[in-house]
């Protein structure tokens, strides 16, 4: 049978349930990868490398794919970013490396993310041990939370020779890579395998250990030479509207987590769903709902398309998945009959003058209430901070900014010299993302090494990449690559 005669299914509704939750982008074939890698110009002082928050040497890893040195390519990636397999799948590349590619204007950018995935898949399949635990220096570090920030910090410290123990509340490590990123973007196995590689580096992984419950912060503080706090964020906050406690109203993160941990066929979903919010998480909830089989999914957002925080490509993706958008709409009450959700009462909004944040304020239009019939409401309006935990840290003199842990940008050290922090729990400004969390882990690992040993980090470790990152303007998290179209010199001189 000629394989290419098999019909290719582009439309989600033509696929079976399991198929709809496979990765949206198939892996590149060897030929595709080599052709694409050969398109790369191998720029010197390449802008993609600067745009990547972990400063992977992108031209080099791509060149190595083109020369068939895929092992070397994978090493180049992992040297700068131990979460290379996750980042290859989840990074908003249009906003980062690919957005900076010099070919963006004359051709089209190199598919950096997918090439990175090609090298990472190869590394995975070839089972190469790229790094090993450094010779033990007798010092101990505790890492709280095994998301991208914690795993990276733990892995890098173990390479340096520290004895690292990672405490994780959940059953599996990986943080949101394991529990939060939609499976058709990153399969659970990828995230778990990545975490396993960190364990293979000699990190002790204590899953099912909630710090503050199963083990006290005081003890970790006492028993270790340094502590890295990477607890991420918590659940979705309350909307403070009547009907919020009804059974059919769910936390978006919980909804996503189910698709990552349960057989797909067992997941409860409504047929007419309202998703509240318009960030990337909200989009994820909406597209998952569609792929599960929900017939009508409407996103409810009180401002307009222009203000919506989701990336443009996410918005496009959702539109392609058949999600509808109700902009300038504010939910005011979840309606029910006999305890079952049957509608979302909303009010229409207008945009007024910008507030101090520069965004135009949405104000309700009087007497414009209307009801969107629905049987399920998914809340995706952001994430709560782990306030009690952070309050506990306050006893050690740790400061906060808007409820996030405050750190020194060069070292990710908190106000207490033994306590470092990174990832979403410090991201008081800028976009929370896997790659930024990863970079936080690296910065902290380097600082912990230098502080505890009194020596600069060894030649060739983390150096090439982190040297570029010390940018004081990145204090407490940097905005992702500021994406402005470049103006060609030729165009301006004419």
């Amino acid at each position, binding site marked *: *049978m*000629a394989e290419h005669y098999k019909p290719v299914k582009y439309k989600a509704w033509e696929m079976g349930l399991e198929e709809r939750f496979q990765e949206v982008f198939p892996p590149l074939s060897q*030929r595709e990868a080599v052709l694409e890698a050969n398109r790369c110009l191998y720029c010197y002082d390449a802008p993609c490398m600067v745009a990547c928050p972990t400063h992977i040497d992108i031209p*080099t890893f791509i*060149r190595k794919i083109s020369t068939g*040195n895929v092992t070397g390519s994978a090493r180049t990636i992992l040297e700068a970013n131990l979460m290379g397999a996750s980042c290859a799948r989840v990074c908003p590349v249009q906003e980062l490396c690919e957005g900076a590619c010099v070919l963006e204007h004359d051709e089209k950018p190199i598919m950096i993310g997918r090439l990175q995935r090609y090298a990472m898949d190869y590394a995975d399949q070839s089972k190469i041990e790229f790094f090993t635990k450094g010779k033990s220096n007798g010092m101990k570090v505790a890492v709280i939370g095994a998301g991208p920030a914690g795993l990276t910090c733990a892995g890098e410290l173990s390479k340096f020779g520290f004895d690292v123990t990672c405490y994780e509340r959940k059953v599996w490590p990986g943080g949101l890579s394991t529990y939060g990123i939609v499976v058709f973007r990153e399969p659970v196995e990828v995230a778990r395998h990545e975490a396993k590689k960190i364990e293979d580096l000699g990190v002790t992984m204590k899953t099912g250990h909630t710090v503050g419950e199963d083990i006290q912060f005081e003890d970790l503080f006492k028993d270790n030479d340094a502590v890295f706090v990477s607890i991420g964020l918590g659940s979705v906050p309350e909307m403070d509207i009547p009907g919020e406690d009804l059974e059919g109203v769910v936390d978006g993160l919980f909804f996503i987590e189910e698709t990552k941990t349960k057989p797909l066929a067992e997941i409860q979903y409504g047929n007419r769903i309202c998703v509240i919010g318009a960030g990337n998480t909200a989009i994820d909830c909406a597209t998952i709902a569609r792929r599960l089989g929900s017939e009508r999914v409407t996103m409810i957002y009180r401002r307009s398309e222009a203000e919506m925080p989701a990336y443009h490509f996410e918005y496009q993706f959702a539109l392609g998945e058949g999600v509808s958008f109700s902009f300038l709409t504010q939910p005011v009450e979840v309606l029910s009959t006999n305890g079952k959700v049957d509608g979302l009462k909303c009010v229409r909004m207008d945009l007024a003058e910008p507030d101090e944040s520069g965004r135009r304020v949405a104000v309700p239009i009087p007497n414009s209430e209307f009801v969107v019939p629905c049987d399920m409401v998914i809340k995706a309006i952001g994430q709560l901070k782990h306030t009690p935990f952070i309050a506990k840290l306050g006893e050690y003199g740790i400061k906060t900014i808007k409820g996030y842990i405050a750190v020194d940008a060069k070292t990710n050290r908190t106000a207490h010299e033994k306590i470092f922090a990174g990832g979403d729990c410090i991201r008081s400004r800028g976009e929370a993302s896997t790659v930024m969390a990863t970079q936080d882990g690296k910065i902290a690992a380097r600082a912990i090494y230098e502080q505890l040993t009194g020596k600069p980090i060894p030649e060739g470790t983390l150096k090439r990449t982190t040297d570029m990152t010390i940018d004081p303007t990145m204090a407490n998290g940097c905005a992702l690559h500021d994406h402005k179209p470049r103006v060609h010199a030729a165009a301006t001189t004419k």
Partner: protein
Amino acid sequence: MADLSINFNGIKSPNPFWLASAPPSNSGYQVQKAFEAGWGGAVWKTVGAPVMNVCNRYGTIDYKGRKIIGLNNVELISDRPLETNLKEMAEAKRNFPNHAVIASIMVESKKEAWQEIIKRTEQTGVDGFELNFGCPHGMSERGMGAAMGQVPEYTCMVTEWVMEVATKPVIVKLTPNVTDIVQPARAAIKANASAISLINTINSIMGVDIDTFEIKPNVGGKGGHGGYAGPAVKPIALNLISAVASDEEYRKAGIPISGMGGIETWQDCVEFMLLGSTSVQVCTAVMHFGFRIVEDLIDGLSNWMDQRNFKNCTDFIGKSLPRISSFGDFDLGFQSVARIDHAKCIQCNLCFIACNDTAHQCIDLKDMKLTSEVTERLWPVVREEDCVGCALCSSVCPVDDCIEMVEIDTGRPHITWNQLIKEKPEVLQWDKMVEYREKNHIHIH
């Protein structure tokens, strides 16, 4: 990790990768920057006779959207004063004692001139010399470069002059612009050279501007032949290197080869080494991308060696040489035929048209009913009994591993041409040849 270091007849280098004598090794700044990037050695841009350069110096060939598949130049040897070059060589060597610094030399054909410059250069502490008998333009018109390399007697004579005074290893760099590369190689061996390097650049004209009728590269409205290098020349270089490496006299001499010509990737390096190069030199690829390409050369080679359990470069240098043979010794009974994998075939039909128009008309387009589509197109199918095994179809096929050349046993006698004409000299007559083929069921339609 594998040990990449080499000992090139006394010249020690941390790895086999050297900058070829050319613009990338023009100055101390460049050579030291290259060493920092990882290059194991550098053959300094040729120094010697005073010169004046022109511009434009380079012309390049782009191939279907890819830049610089070949580069030609009308550049001369170093136009910086000799004194400056010598001073910088000394400094580079001092700062990088474990790297190989080799001085490339070219002066007029006078014994005193050669001996004098060799003695002066040796004082800088360089690890060896390379005699540039290969530059095909500008210098050759003045009786230097290729003008010496193309006449084996001159090659031998000048090498002897140098050997009389040199205490460091002397590499003779050959020009490819000769009919039989073995002759100048033997001349160098006869003069007791310590090593041979090849190839220098190939005579070429890069093109003509069809609007202005100017020659490329255009030197103020004129143009002329220049030296061709870059990826496009690699097959020529591999052939010339293998020819020298397989020569009986060269083998007896037991001296190393430094191979170059078209090297861009670590795989290219491996190929040059498998055909007998102990060190490899690179110019054009460095001019295209910078010194940094050496990182992948090192990484790629060392991963490749690790995978195969090669501990040292000597474990594989020359490993493919025993396979270099010649037509008369090929097995006439070896038969391969093309086989198309229809699961992979995308029905571009390039194989069909190539075979039908330009090979032996043994691919048919057939209704195969391989799918349930009503509109199923015809499929290319090889008539294996007629396939002569030329491999054209598999070469034009755009899909990896779709057309494979598979070996089949036809029962033909395994005999070489040399054996055949010895045993049956009558086959040199067409009627006897036909008879022989018939007897052995060899049918050519």
